[in-house]
């Protein structure tokens, strides 16, 4: 299982996406927790990248849980009309890990 906390900005977002997929591939991780508690805005560009990360990780056999989404960020995603429909989320890192364990069946 990989757990990462990220400072997502425009320059690092694509790099983050590539690095994470590499890491999943190398380690054969079955689950990834991405903690967004330090991210203060998510615009449509970053939202797209995050959504893609979840889909691509899925292709590599790893399940992603997003944790620590700030209230302001949740409000903005709603204003932008962006739904995290098929994306698993949890309040904090601890709950995210618990959710992953449960989803991965043990």
């Amino acid at each position, binding site marked *: 299982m990989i757990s990462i906390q990220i400072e997502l*900005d*425009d*320059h690092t977002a694509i790099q983050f996406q590539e690095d994470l997929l590499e890491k999943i591939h190398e380690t054969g991780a079955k689950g990834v927790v991405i903690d967004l508690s330090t991210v*203060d*805005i*998510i*615009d*449509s*560009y970053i*939202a*797209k990248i995050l959504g893609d990360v979840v889909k691509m990780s899925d292709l590599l056999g790893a399940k992603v849980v997003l944790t620590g989404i700030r*209230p*302001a*960020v949740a*409000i*903005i995603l709603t*204003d*932008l*009309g*962006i739904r995290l429909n098929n994306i698993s989320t949890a309040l904090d890192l601890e709950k995210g890990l618990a959710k992953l364990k449960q989803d991965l069946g043990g």
Partner: protein
Amino acid sequence: MIMETRSSVPINNEWDIVQARQLGRQISREMGFGHVDQARITTAISELARNIYLYANNGEITIEPIVNLGKKGLKITSRDKGPGIKDIRLVMQDGYTTSGGLGAGLPGVKRLMDIFKIDSTLEKGTNIVAIKWLR
């Protein structure tokens, strides 16, 4: 201290998008916007600046505190001399994109802000004004 003058950020590359966003965050904080509205303003600037960069290559974001009938607000203007927009009704629809994006930017900015006006002429460019009132 409230900056009464308007500030402009030329948008020529991705770093300028971050620059415009940071300035918007700073000015909205100084004006006393709550932190959710600060985030709304910052996100709106990010969307408009990225659209300039993506579709017009360059342009300018202007951020300006305004007062109207005793009501304070922050006015964001996005200007470019890019290709312009043919069908404004179409680009204001959620999910419409010509770049493989989410198509969430423009309709999103309209919802994030209180006033939203878009004015565009083909081959001349695009002007967008968005205002958030201080509550």
